[in-house]
C-alpha cells in the first residue's frame, strides 16, 4: 500500500515536473531529520558543585563568580565560598503547578548598581484568586533584597497551573526581555495583543516601555509586548555574535520550537504548530500560514526544553559555536550545531543526569546545569 503510493509518486514526479515543484512547496515547512547522537566516549566529567536542591529553576553568576539560584518553592539562594545562603526579603511566591520563583538575571552594570531581576508567579497586586507571572527588580545587599519593585504583573490572575514562561535576558542595547506562557488559555491569550500570556516582552532596565516597542500605537494593546503567538518559552539567550535574542518554547505533544525573536512578529501558536494535543487529537492541520513565523527548529517528539545557552569562548574547544538546551523529559543536555541557521547536528551531553531545568555558561567558560533533585553540576573537560 505504502510502497504503491511511493511508486506512483515517483512516476508522477518524473512525468510532471510541475507536480514535483508543487510537492516541494507543500513540504517547504519541513526540516531535514537530524537524529540525535549519543557519543559513547566522554570528553568531560560532571561535578556536583551545589548539592541538595529540589527544583533549581534559574541561575545567574555575579561578577565575583558566586551564584544566584532560584528554588521554585520560593527561596532565592546565594552560593558563595561553598555556602548556601538564603537571601532575605523575597516577596511571597504563589506556588502552583508549574509556577513558583523562576527566572533570575543580573543588571548588565551590576558591578555598580547591585541590581538583580527575577520573575515569579504571584497572587498579589490583584483581588482575583489565582496567580500570574510577575517581573521584579531589587538591589542585593548583604544577602537581603532592598528596594524591591514590581516592574510588570500579567493579568488576570488564574488558578490554571501551567505555562508561566519566565526567562529574563538583556540585549546589547540594555533592554530587558522576559517571557510569559499562555497560562493554559491558548485559544484566548497568545493571539490577542490586549491580553497577557503567550508573549515575549521588552522593557527598559527600570521597567518603562521602550518608545519603539512594536505595539505602542495599537489601541488597548499591552505595549510591553515585543512578539506574540508563543506557547510557553522557558529558554532564552542572547546570541554572542549577532546579539539576537533566541528562545525555545514547549510545544504540546511534539512541536517544541527554537525561534529568533523579532519585533512585532507572530510566532503562530495556536494557529500553526508541529504538535498535537496530549490526547493525540489535532490542534490545527496548519503547520505554516502567511504572516506567521516558522520556527528555526522544531522537536518531535518533545524534549520539554528548559534553559538555553550559547557555547562561546568556552572551556570546550570543540563545542564553541553550538547551542545547549536542557531536556526535562529525557534527562540530558542537548547540544545543537548550526549552518546558516539550520540545525545540522544534535548530541546528548550528561545523558541520564536528571531533569535539566537550566543551563548557563559561567564567566570562567564552564557550563553549569541546574538539575532537579540533584543540584548545580559543572561540566569539566577531561585533560
Amino acid at each position, binding site marked *: 500500500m505504502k510502497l504503491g503510493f511511493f511508486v506512483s509518486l515517483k512516476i508522477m514526479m518524473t512525468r510532471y515536473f510541475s507536480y514535483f515543484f508543487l510537492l516541494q512547496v507543500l513540504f517547504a515547512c519541513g526540516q531535514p531529520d537530524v537524529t540525535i547522537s549519543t557519543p559513547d566516549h566522554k570528553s568531560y566529567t560532571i561535578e556536583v558543585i551545589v548539592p541538595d536542591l*529540589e*527544583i533549581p529553576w534559574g541561575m545567574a553568576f555575579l561578577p565575583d563568580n558566586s551564584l544566584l539560584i532560584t528554588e*521554585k518553592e520560593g527561596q532565592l539562594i546565594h552560593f558563595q565560598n561553598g555556602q548556601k545562603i538564603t537571601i532575605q526579603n523575597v516577596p511571597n511566591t*504563589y*506556588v*502552583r*503547578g508549574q*509556577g513558583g520563583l523562576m527566572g533570575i538575571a543580573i543588571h548588565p552594570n551590576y558591578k555598580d548598581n547591585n541590581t538583580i531581576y527575577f520573575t515569579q508567579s504571584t497572587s498579589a497586586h490583584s483581588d482575583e484568586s489565582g496567580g500570574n507571572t510577575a517581573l521584579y527588580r531589587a538591589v542585593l545587599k548583604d544577602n537581603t533584597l532592598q528596594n524591591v519593585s514590581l516592574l510588570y504583573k500579567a493579568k488576570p490572575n488564574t488558578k*490554571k*497551573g*501551567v505555562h508561566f514562561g519566565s526567562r529574563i535576558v538583556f540585549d546589547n542595547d540594555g533592554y530587558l526581555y522576559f517571557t510569559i506562557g499562555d497560562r*493554559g488559555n491558548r485559544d484566548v491569550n497568545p493571539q490577542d495583543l490586549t491580553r497577557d500570556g503567550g508573549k515575549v516582552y521588552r522593557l527598559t532596565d527600570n521597567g518603562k516601555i521602550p518608545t519603539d516597542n512594536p505595539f505602542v500605537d495599537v489601541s488597548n494593546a499591552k505595549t510591553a509586548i515585543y512578539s506574540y503567538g508563543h506557547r510557553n518559552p522557558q529558554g532564552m539567550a542572547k546570541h554572542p555574535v549577532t546579539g539576537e535574542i533566541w528562545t525555545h518554547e514547549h510545544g504540546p505533544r511534539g512541536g517544541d520550537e527554537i525561534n529568533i525573536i523579532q519585533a512585532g512578529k507572530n510566532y503562530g501558536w495556536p494557529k500553526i504548530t508541529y504538535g498535537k494535543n*496530549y*490526547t*493525540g487529537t489535532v490542534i490545527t492541520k496548519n503547520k505554516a500560514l502567511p504572516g506567521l513565523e516558522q520556527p528555526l527548529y522544531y522537536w518531535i517528539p518533545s524534549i520539554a526544553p528548559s534553559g538555553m545557552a550559547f557555547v562561546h569562548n568556552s572551556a570546550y574547544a570543540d563545542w564553541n559555536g553550538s547551542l545547549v538546551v536542557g531536556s526535562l*523529559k*529525557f*534527562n540530558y543536555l542537548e547540544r545543537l550545531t548550526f549552518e546558516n541557521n539550520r540545525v545540522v547536528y544534535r548530541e546528548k551531553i550528561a545523558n541520564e543526569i*536528571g*531533569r535539566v531545568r537550566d543551563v548557563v555558561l559561567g564567566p570562567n567558560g564552564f557550563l553549569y546545569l541546574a538539575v*532537579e*533533585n540533584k543540584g548545580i553540576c559543572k561540566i569539566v573537560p577531561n585533560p
Partner: protein
Amino acid sequence: MRFIFLIILLSTSSLAQQSSGDSYMRGQMLYVDFCVRCHLPDGTGETGLIPPLANADFLQDIQATVQSIKYGTHGPITVNGVIYNNTMAPMGLENDEIADVTNYILNSWGNTADVIVTEAYVRGIKETK
C-alpha cells in the same frame, strides 16, 4: 456467602461512583491542567521515566497516593514492578482539589475504588520523611 459479599462490594462501589460524580468531574479538569503532560491522557505514563496510573498497584495504598500528590515524591518508588527514581514536585493544589483529582485517578482507565477521598481525609494526611 462469598457471593453475597461480592454483591455488596459491587453495589457500594457503584454507589460510591455515583455520589462522587461531581468530585470526579472536577478531578478530570484538574488532571488535564496539572497531570496530563507527564502521566498522559490514558494514564499510561512512560515506562522507566513516568510511572503509570492506569492499573497501577501503587494506587492500592490510598494514603501513599494522596501523600504523593500532596507533598510530591522524592527518590525511588516501585510501580507494577518497575523502579522510578525521579521527583514529582507538589503541585500546590488545595486539599479539596487533591481529593477530586485522587477520585478521578482512582476511577479512570479501568481503575476502580470503593472509597471516596474527601477533603477532610486529605487534610489529615501528613508528610513522612
